[in-house]
């Protein structure tokens, strides 16, 4: 039997890895990926707690967190594409200006 504290320690470490990636990386997509890591740390904590407390509540929460993470990934990556497109179009504009 694995003690609960092992799961909680692993979840805390995973969450902090996500925090570190979010604070240190500057690539937008890797920052989103770090948020996913943090959400996974929280999920692991919830599932472990619901297992050790004989309840399904934490697992229902995990289910909703996965839903929200999927929505967040779709919207965030859509924003990333829009950002990329607008920057590239700005780039093309400057090229036009240079051509006169």
């Amino acid at each position, binding site marked *: 039997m694995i003690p609960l504290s092992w799961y909680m320690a692993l979840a805390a470490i995973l969450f902090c890895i996500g925090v570190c990636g979010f*604070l240190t990386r500057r690539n937008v997509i890797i920052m989103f990926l770090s948020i996913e890591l943090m959400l996974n740390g929280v999920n692991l904590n919830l599932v472990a707690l619901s297992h050790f407390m004989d309840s399904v509540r934490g697992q229902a929460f995990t289910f909703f967190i996965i839903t929200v993470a999927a929505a967040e990934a779709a919207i965030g990556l859509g924003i990333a594409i829009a950002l990329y497109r607008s920057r590239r179009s700005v780039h093309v504009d400057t090229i036009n200006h240079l051509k006169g």
Partner: protein
Amino acid sequence: MFLQFFFGYCALMIIASGILAISLRNPVHSVLMVLVLFFHMAGLYLTLNAEFLAAVQIIVYAGAILVLYLFVLFLVSLREELHLDAFVPGAWLGRIIAVGLAVGLLYVIPAFTLGEKGTWSVSAIRELTHTKALGQELYSAYLLPFEIAGLILLVALIGGLVLARREEVPLPGADADPSPEHKEVAR
């Protein structure tokens, strides 16, 4: 004994692939490392008797979300990455904040005590199978949040479509009512 070895293996792989994911330079390698991490996370869910969540983890996270990330990575060309200014000045301050947070969290974990036990013991879940138990809970106690989750997915779908839509560029001479920008260009 086997369970503890399995947990150790999964924990080691999760920590190693997590650190690699945030430190590798190539974003595609990062996404693949996160894929490894998600598979081992599903293994840990199996040790917690949460088979349905393990399956959802692999299908939704590894199958859908990471594929979305890979598509966007290939769409946004790798040479000119999207960069934002970091939230903290300097990478080392971010690392120090993260390590401090980890030390603080690990320090307070032994003080945690479990609350009172619920009604879904392991044997009860095994008797009913995990999917059925979770479904019963979702459709009775969490019916309204479940509907809201569906609404959130709908909002994400529409939002993704609106965000990814290409701006309409009127073809020269093709439409009778050119937009103001088009007139500007024509002049």
